[in-house]
């Protein structure tokens, strides 16, 4: 897989046909273009073209104060925005050496695991759709809606959440949020079980996915794969377990691994991760009972935006509000790399700070971007229909791919 093909064949006598798969093809679920050369239905070579929704987030981030970068991270992997938001906030907290209270960590864990479930619901549901089973997708989507309603109670928005603040959350979780969370924990396992029994031993599904696009652990590591894809290939690398952030070390969960990295293993790994996420959320809820219920942010007035009514009525809050918004609070001149386990893999933030109001340089290590580069080389020799489900199971999100 060393030599990457470049499409040059313009020979009219050629037996091969050229197919533009994308940029807007209903089967690609996003803006992905692959120029494929086909011999019948078999792919001879392919070239991926990306960048159709490139929005220059890294450049914009060099001109924005820290708080205004959170909405940019929303738009990376927009299927699980809270993980991106909190990953960014935790990067800034690491830069500023802010210790968050345990309750904040647990609340964050709850929201991040919900986001992971929402992301895996989409990926595995769509994988079902692409293999011809629409039912599972529809059953699962009902629960993604339930997750979005929990986001709404916590932060007011659904898809691009902009959730939380540096140091914690903008407001405490209300009782409806917990009610909806408990209802979700009660209803979702039943559907997930049904979903698994619909697919896991389904002859058509297994025939379509088993041994399709199998990737060895060595190849996956060489291509810097992370997340469910790497774990499906048999490497148990999970940032949550290896470099715990947000108190993940307090939780008891397993890191599922697959055997040969094919589409079927990826599907199973993602399903199992949803079960583990449910386990983590249940443990987090139990731990919350032991924490004081009125703490939802760290005590860092220099960086935590004060509530609006205090800004209007309290001199000190007004000063802090002004200084935070204008970026007038000194920050250390240093560099920091922080990574979280996004739904697709290691989501890294490399922040070089010069003490100014915005980062000197901010680089996002986007798992979709790095995972997707194997797509064209690994498609060679594959059937076109297999390449389609391979793309679904890579779960490449266009926003994260192009940043």
């Amino acid at each position, binding site marked *: 897989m060393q030599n990457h093909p470049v499409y040059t064949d313009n020979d009219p006598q050629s037996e091969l046909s050229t197919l533009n798969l994308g940029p807007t093809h209903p089967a690609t679920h996003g803006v992905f273009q692959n120029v494929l050369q086909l011999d019948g239905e078999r792919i001879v070579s392919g070239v991926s073209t*990306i960048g159709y929704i490139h929005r220059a987030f890294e450049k914009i981030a060099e001109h924005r104060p820290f708080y205004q970068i959170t909405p940019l991270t929303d738009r990376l992997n927009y299927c699980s925005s809270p993980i991106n938001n909190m990953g960014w906030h935790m990067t800034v907290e690491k830069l500023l050496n802010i210790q968050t209270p345990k309750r904040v960590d647990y609340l964050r864990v709850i929201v991040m695991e919900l986001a992971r479930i929402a992301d895996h619901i989409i990926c595995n549901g769509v994988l079902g759709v692409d293999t011809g089973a629409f039912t599972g997708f529809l059953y699962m989507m009902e629960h993604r809606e339930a997750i979005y309603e929990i986001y709404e109670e916590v932060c007011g928005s659904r898809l691009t959440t902009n959730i939380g603040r540096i140091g914690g959350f903008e407001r405490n979780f209300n009782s409806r949020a917990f009610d909806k969370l408990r209802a979700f924990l009660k209803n979702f396992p039943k559907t997930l079980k049904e979903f698994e029994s619909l697919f896991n031993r389904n002859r058509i599904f297994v025939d379509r996915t088993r041994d399709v696009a199998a990737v060895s652990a060595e190849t996956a590591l060489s291509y810097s794969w992370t997340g469910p894809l790497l774990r499906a290939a048999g490497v148990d690398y999970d940032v949550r377990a290896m470099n715990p952030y947000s108190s993940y070390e307090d939780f008891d969960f397993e890191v599922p691994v697959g055997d040969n990295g094919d589409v079927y293993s990826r599907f199973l790994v993602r399903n199992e991760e949803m079960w583990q996420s449910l386990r983590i959320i249940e443990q987090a809820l139990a731990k919350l009972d032991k924490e004081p219920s009125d703490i939802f942010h760290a005590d860092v007035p220099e960086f935590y935006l004060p509530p609006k009514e205090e800004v209007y009525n309290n001199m000190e809050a007004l000063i802090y509000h002004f200084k935070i918004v204008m970026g007038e609070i000194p920050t250390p001149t240093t560099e920091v790399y922080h990574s979280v386990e996004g739904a697709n893999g290691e989501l890294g933030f490399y922040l070089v700070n010069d003490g100014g109001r915005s980062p000197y340089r901010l680089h996002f*290590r986007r798992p979709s971007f*790095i995972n997707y580069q194997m797509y064209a080389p690994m498609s060679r020799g594959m059937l076109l229909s297999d390449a389609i489900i391979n793309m679904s199971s890579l779960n490449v999100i266009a926003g994260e791919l192009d940043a």
Partner: protein
Amino acid sequence: MAKIPNEQLIKAIADKFDTSVTVIGEPYELLTVETGRETIIDLLSFLKTDPELKFIFLTDITGIHYPEQEKPIGIIYHLHSLTTNTRIRIKVFLENTDVHIPTATVLWDGANWMERETYDFFGVIFDGHPDLRRILNVDDMTAFPMRKEFPLEDPNRVDKKDFYFGR
């Protein structure tokens, strides 16, 4: 295995590379070293293949631009040793007039797009790269947009002037 202490890492590198690799800091316990482009592939390959260190995982390659430095263009590698859970950051700085550096695709296939991205945004030319083209920007772009001199917005554009919005 436990994390390799930074002192041991520094010693292992110094034994092999003497003064051609310099330590520039340990921000947040992440060892950061600097080297030149002559030694970068040797250093990466040593870190990857050394049986004690085993930095087999390339986390990221990216660039940075310090216009006021003598060597303004930086390339930054993040490596991760999965068995010992140790990370290391390596920097190489290049002069503006000679932005060539050997490619890391000989060691990791995954370096391909990371280097293309760095080329696309900083104009760093990775010698020996199999397919060094722009990746996120359009092919006929002439500038390297993450360099500091490139403005965020065209200062001459008029379509965002206030009077168009009745202000």
